[in-house]
């Protein structure tokens, strides 16, 4: 099998001392920022983008990917011990896992989520290994109209579809698209919305937007609600090693969570929290102990945590094989590829096969490292939760200004950072998700290029999107995804 040859080659490169080291740095940093409230993988990768000028692409991308999936492991530790979900995808863990911790079962909760994350992480990397070449094969036949249709589908699935916040998600996406317009238009050389400010002519830096929305916005938000938020770190009183009973109750939820999470990460219909909710609902239905749900049932931690982790690999699959970012961190990873002049997508598998397969192999290795980091060494990470809030957020702000200034040595960007931080604060206050802003900002210019290329081919005829069977199908799916839930709601009402 060709895939195995590629993978073996990837392993031989990923196992070099240097790449192992980058992988270890990535997953360690990822776990740390996953544990720490107020800073997540998106901000961390954004702040580290300047290193792309110093290290080779495979080292940097191995590290960045490690930060991404490492943060999924670390995030569950915080949710279980602190009951403040760091992100919407860990709401369930914060609920059920914290209940377990309250009943003196913090160790079992931490361990079922770490092992579940490992199971999900590893199985889904296997899936990524075998699915992505198939996707690439199809996508190699795509022209501009097909890519544009695919991006429209991605915009819609990322932002809308399900939930009460669909309208606000879509608005956030469009704000991101607007930010992406600023600067000199690549194809015509026209300056757009730059007001003759030199820093704006170059476009707004991804780092500034990511750090502004996530780090500065979050800091403002937490500070403004400081009096109301009372966090108590739970103590781990039981053993970190699960009992036979816990294993028996965990393994099926792990597998089911994995199966649910992977496709939802690849095509996130309605946000990252949906697969964890789904997994929770299914486990609640299938369990022999329904009375424990809501009071700390181990299945309710095992399933959603596996789903959460599996979805992050699903996201990586879509990013690598199609070049579509379906989460905020994936959008930044895309920006990291762009720093090297690389564009993820089918052509990357053809032109930079070594790089892609080294990265995929590193994900197998990284998951093993994470299991060690998060099981025997979990006590170390718990200590991070004891950092006083004022020191933690003040430190985050130092890193924020450092990364934003360092990107292009411009103090203007610090003021821009503040403005975007205020936007992030307002969005948080009125419950607008911030992730779609980043996706819109990074995917927008790519979509625009494909749109204009398509219309150049067709000499301005929009029918080109319907005449190509593949793009017509993708657009039909998009319409279905938008209209479907709405029709179902209508029917329910009548």
């Amino acid at each position, binding site marked *: 099998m060709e895939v195995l040859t590629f993978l073996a080659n990837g392993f031989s490169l990923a196992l070099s001392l240097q790449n192992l080291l980058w992988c270890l740095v990535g997953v360690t940093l990822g776990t740390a920022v996953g544990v720490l409230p107020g800073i997540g993988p998106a901000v961390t990768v954004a702040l580290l983008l300047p290193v792309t000028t110093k290290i080779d692409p495979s080292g940097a991308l191995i590290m960045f990917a490690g930060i991404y999936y490492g943060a999924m492991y670390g995030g569950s530790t915080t949710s279980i011990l602190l009951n403040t979900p760091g992100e919407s995808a860990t709401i369930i863990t914060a609920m059920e896992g914290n209940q377990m911790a309250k009943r003196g079962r913090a160790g079992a909760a931490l361990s079922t989520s770490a092992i579940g994350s490992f199971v999900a992480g590893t199985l889904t990397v296997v899936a990524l290994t075998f699915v992505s070449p198939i996707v690439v094969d199809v996508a190699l036949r795509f022209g501009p109209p097909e890519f544009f249709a695919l991006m429209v589908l991605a915009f819609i699935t990322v932002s809308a579809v399900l939930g009460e916040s669909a*309208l606000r998600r879509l*608005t956030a996406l469009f704000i991101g698209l607007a930010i992406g317009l600023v600067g000199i238009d690549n194809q015509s050389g026209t300056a757009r919305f730059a007001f003759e400010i030199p820093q704006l002519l170059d476009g707004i830096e991804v780092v500034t937007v990511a750090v502004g929305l996530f780090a500065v916005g979050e800091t403002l938000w937490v500070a403004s609600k400081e009096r*109301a938020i009372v966090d108590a770190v739970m103590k781990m009183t039981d053993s970190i090693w699960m009992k036979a009973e816990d294993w028996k109750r965990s393994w099926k939820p792990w597998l089911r969570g994995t199966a649910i999470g992977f496709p939802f990460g690849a095509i996130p219909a309605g946000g990252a929290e949906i697969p964890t909710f789904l997994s929770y609902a299914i486990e609640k239905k299938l369990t022999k102990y329904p009375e424990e749900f809501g009071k700390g049932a181990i299945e309710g931690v095992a399933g959603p945590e596996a789903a959460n982790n599996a979805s992050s690999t699903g996201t990586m699959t879509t990013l690598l094989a199609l070049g579509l970012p379906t989460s905020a961190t994936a959008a930044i990873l895309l920006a990291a590829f762009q720093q090297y002049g690389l564009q993820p997508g089918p052509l990357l598998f053809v032109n930079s096969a070594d790089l892609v397969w080294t990265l995929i192999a590193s994900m197998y290795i990284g998951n093993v490292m994470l299991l060690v980091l998060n099981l025997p060494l979990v006590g170390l990470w718990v200590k991070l939760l004891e950092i006083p809030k004022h020191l933690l957020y003040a430190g985050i702000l130092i890193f924020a200004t450092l990364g934003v200034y*360092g990107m292009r040595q411009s103090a203007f960007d*610090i003021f821009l950072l503040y403005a975007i931080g205020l936007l992030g604060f307002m969005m948080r206050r009125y*419950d607008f998700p911030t992730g779609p802003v980043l996706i819109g900002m990074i995917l927008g210019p790519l979509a625009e290029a494909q749109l204009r290329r398509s219309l*150049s081919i067709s000499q*301005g005829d929009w029918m080109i999107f319907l005449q190509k069977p593949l793009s017509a199908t993708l657009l039909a799916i998009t319409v279905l995804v938008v209209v479907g839930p709405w029709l179902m709601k209508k029917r329910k009402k009548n």
Partner: protein
Amino acid sequence: MAEGDVAQPGTQPGTPADVPGAASAKRHVGQILVAAGVVVFGAALAYGTALLPEATGYAKVGPRLMPTIVSGGLIALGLVLLKEALFGGFRGVDEVEAAANPTDWRAIAWISAAIIANGILMVPVGFVLSGTLLFVLAARGFGNTAWVKNAMIGLVIAVITYAFFNYGLGLGLPRGILPV
């Protein structure tokens, strides 16, 4: 998605007395401003788009196309948001809880001062000292008044990050008034 979303879960259609227009509008002033802000932003973008040069070439697609789509979308989304804000509020946003949990504007002022001062001082004073000041002011924003202790911690963090990013990664951070 305009019509189907209007009825809020829980509110029975056909009992308009439950939603007294004036009272609910009063409660959602912030939301109305946010929605109006989106409309104004979209309109400003549309105005800016109109000032862009016309497309040239036979394809008739140029730098105006995407901004036209984006500004149109923002105006439309803003109008639907406005409708939600005026009639029952944004779906799924709990204003009652928000009101019970007021925003601490003084904290925001401290942190704003911290970042703005950093932007002003970064180049003339240098990364280390402006970073230390940022740290102290931000910690104050979180209600901590141990100025000296915070200044020392901030200084240590700033020096370490400066050394790492400046000499390790060659990021070129401003030295300012310090000798190294």
